[in-house]
């Protein structure tokens, strides 16, 4: 009995102490309701932290939503993927097709209170195009679309001169993944040219940033509202809340719990949880087609796959719709064309191009005298859809009698093989491109990373990039598509649809093909 009492004393003391501490802590904390939200702040989940906001140095996909709220360019995309003036009030193209003259909007001010003039536009251009810049669009404006010079004849006018006429110029100038060719104030950098912080003209200005945790943007009270119809990145963009916090939540399950608890107001969703969120009475889902494109790429110099009949056989064996539905839990449909449905250039492919045919695949294999040589498809698990689609494709190819294997690599290694063009086949995804010919530009070209180096395709692409006439662009795009189906440098699988889970306390949240969530014109009910 005495033994029991002694041991119980030790146990009781320890458990009592721990229990008491926990109880005190919970009592203290439960006095606050963590479901109560800041009335003037919207919290948006980011899947990972952004690299930074200096477009010359450290932009990434996560920077785009912050850039879109803080900086603006001369032009911007609208939701139908056409381009409209943003900081420009209008623009004209010279008769030679090589000069673009932009008139700037009146009354626009930077976040430091200084007015927008053509001097800042020129400074911004020189900043992002500097020799040591890795700005995402620098290679475009120093390559296929060569900008020979930029002049500021007066405070309200800026002129871009191209060395050759190029209709794609305005679309590339507005690219979201290039921060819309941002107009920054020179005070964004210090006297030594070192980045200090982004000073733009957007409806929000940069607030607090905690690396690894969140980036906040605050309402810019002196924002010059446009009267144009709001769409995409342009038009009337009114900040209706004081603060937007872009908070890093890497785990998808934690994002869902955060959305349901009210800690998050908006979060990207994976396809498998869309139905769950739609059933939640306090939440809703907004979705949109995007230009993000998934495909199976071929190494065109591979001894086996350089035979076009082999590539056609593989294309015939793949049921795109089954692949798309398989990876998206039935949410997406397949597409035989790299041109996204949201694009101005989209033409619906014929059913013959889209439907799989094992008979046709087997006939082509027999014609190519295929004898069961292995075909290695590179995939990775860091981006799960690339791996999942590879598994589905492998089973389809095996059903057609093709000896397909999956080689799972780390994403960095796969990217390295992609850049060098050293692979037999790759399960791959391309970031969204909103410029009409961008759908083709990402695969056509002489660079080692481009999958389709065919001379005729390159000529067509260059022609399509040069013209400013949408009808001619579409005609060229259709020609490229016919050639794409014939040459099969890649098998187009599907374009991704983006889903956002949104708290019902918000009004005005709408997904768009521009992918990135917009929080201007969004209010708290």
């Amino acid at each position, binding site marked *: 009995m*005495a*033994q*029991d*009492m*002694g*041991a119980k004393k*030790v*146990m009781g003391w*320890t*458990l009592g*102490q*721990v229990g008491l501490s926990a109880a005190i*802590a*919970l009592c*203290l*904390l*439960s006095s*606050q*309701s*963590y*479901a109560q939200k800041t009335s003037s702040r919207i919290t948006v989940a980011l899947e*990972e*932290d952004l*690299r*930074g906001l*200096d477009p010359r140095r*450290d932009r990434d996909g996560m920077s785009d939503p912050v850039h879109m709220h803080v900086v603006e360019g001369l032009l911007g995309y609208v939701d139908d993927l056409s381009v409209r003036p943003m900081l420009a009030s209008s623009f004209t193209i010279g008769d030679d097709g090589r000069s673009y003259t932009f008139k700037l909007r009146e009354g626009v001010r930077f976040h430091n209170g200084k007015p927008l003039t053509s001097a800042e536009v020129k400074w911004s251009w020189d900043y992002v195009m500097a020799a*040591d*810049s*890795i700005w*995402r669009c*620098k*290679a475009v404006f120093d390559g296929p679309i060569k900008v020979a010079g930029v002049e500021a004849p007066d405070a309200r006018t800026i002129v871009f001169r191209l060395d050759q006429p190029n209709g794609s110029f305005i679309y590339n100038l507005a690219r979201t993944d290039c921060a819309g060719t941002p107009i920054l104030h020179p005070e964004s950098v210090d006297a030594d040219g070192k*980045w200090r912080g982004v000073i733009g003209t957007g409806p929000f200005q940069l607030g607090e940033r*905690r*690396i*690894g*945790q969140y980036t906040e943007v605050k309402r810019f009270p002196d924002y010059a509202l446009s009267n144009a119809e709001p769409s995409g990145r342009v038009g009337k963009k009114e900040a209706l809340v004081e603060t937007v916090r872009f*908070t*890093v*939540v*890497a*785990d998808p*399950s*934690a994002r869902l*719990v*955060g959305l349901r*608890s009210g*800690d998050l107001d908006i979060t990207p969703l994976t396809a498998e949880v869309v139905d769950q969120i739609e059933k939640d009475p306090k939440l809703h889902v907004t979705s949109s087609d995007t230009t993000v494109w998934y495909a199976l790429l071929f190494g065109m110099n591979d001894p086996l796959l350089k035979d076009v009949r082999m590539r056609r056989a593989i294309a015939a064996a793949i049921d795109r719709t089954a692949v798309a539905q398989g990876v998206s839990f039935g949410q997406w449909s397949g597409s035989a064309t790299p041109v996204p449905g949201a694009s101005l250039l989209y033409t619906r492919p014929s059913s013959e191009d889209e439907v799989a045919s094992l008979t046709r695949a087997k006939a082509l294999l027999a014609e190519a005298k295929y004898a069961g040589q292995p075909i290695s498809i590179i995939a990775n698990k*860091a981006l799960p859809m690339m791996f999942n689609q590879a598994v589905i494709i492998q089973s389809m190819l095996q059903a057609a009698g093709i000896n397909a294997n999956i080689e799972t690599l*780390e*994403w*960095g*290694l796969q*990217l390295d093989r992609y*850049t060098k063009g050293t692979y037999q086949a790759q399960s791959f995804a*391309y*970031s969204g491109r909103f410029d009409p010919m961008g759908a083709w530009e*990402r695969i056509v070209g002489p*660079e080692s990373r481009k999958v389709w180096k065919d001379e005729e395709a390159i000529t067509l692409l260059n022609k399509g990039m040069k013209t400013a006439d949408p009808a001619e662009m579409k005609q060229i795009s259709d020609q490229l598509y016919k050639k794409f189906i014939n040459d099969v440098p890649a098998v187009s699988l599907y374009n991704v649809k983006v889903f956002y889970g949104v708290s019902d306390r918000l009004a005005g949240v709408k997904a768009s093909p521009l992918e990135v969530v917009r929080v201007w014109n969004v209010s708290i009910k």
Partner: protein
Amino acid sequence: MATYLARRLSMMLLTLSLVAVTVFVLVRLVPGDSASLMLGEAGSLEQLAILRARWGLDQPWPIQFLYWIKGLLSGDFGVSTRTGEPVLALILARFQVSAVIVLAAMTIAVLVAVPVGLYAAWKQNSWADLAVVSVATLLLSIPSFWLGLLLLVVFGLKLSWLPILGYVGFGEDFSRALSFVILPVATLALIEIGVLVRMARASAIEVLRLEYVTHARAKGMPEWRVLAFHVFPNAFAPTLTLIGLILGNLLGGIAVLETVFTLPGMGRLLVESIFARDYPVVQGCLLLTGVIFVLINLIVDMLYPIFDPRVARA
């Protein structure tokens, strides 16, 4: 003792030198680099060359290594290729977060697990022992991310007692900071309690069978004194070694828990940096982990003689 300490410190330097070389070489053996990952599928070869030159990746490995070591010796761990932040400041800020969680969880785990393990050993083969062993086995079998999510759903979502996402430093707002760390600390403590209870129980069972325990009982010593002064010190020594190993391991990063609870800790930093091939940060984190391991083992070795004087005599 001084000679022993000096010998251990010189061994520590040798170990850390080996860690530095191994870490440097291993991160570079993985194909692809931070430049290609940063630029993605749209990067041109010219831009790749600019970035590689900027970060010194165009230099031969021995030159890169010498620059790194030279920087380390002057306290400069380099700059993150991912965020542009100085590596040392970045790592120390993140390490603080991990350290708070780990130290709090381990303190709780030790305070609970050691007496409970002792009690279970003392009551070996009873219902109480069976219950303790079952719960301990269950706790160490549960994946930490699952337990974390479960606690988030119950205490954050259903009861709304605790916040779900975010982190605030203790220096900024103590009560809010406490609210953010309770769930991760509880998750980690529960998992480690499972491990430590089993170890403490097994060690105590061994000690309870020894003759000096029988002798203490035979001379009429109260049972609680037998447990506290004869069984506990001898049974705790092996558990202390295990605590040292666990602590070193956890302080190196609790990436899964940090991801679930959105904590800006060192584990998450390391994982993100590995994926981005942020060599300076990966090297810095792994070197710090090496230092932590070596230091904790040194401290454990220094503490060991307190519980087992035979070690000091040896």
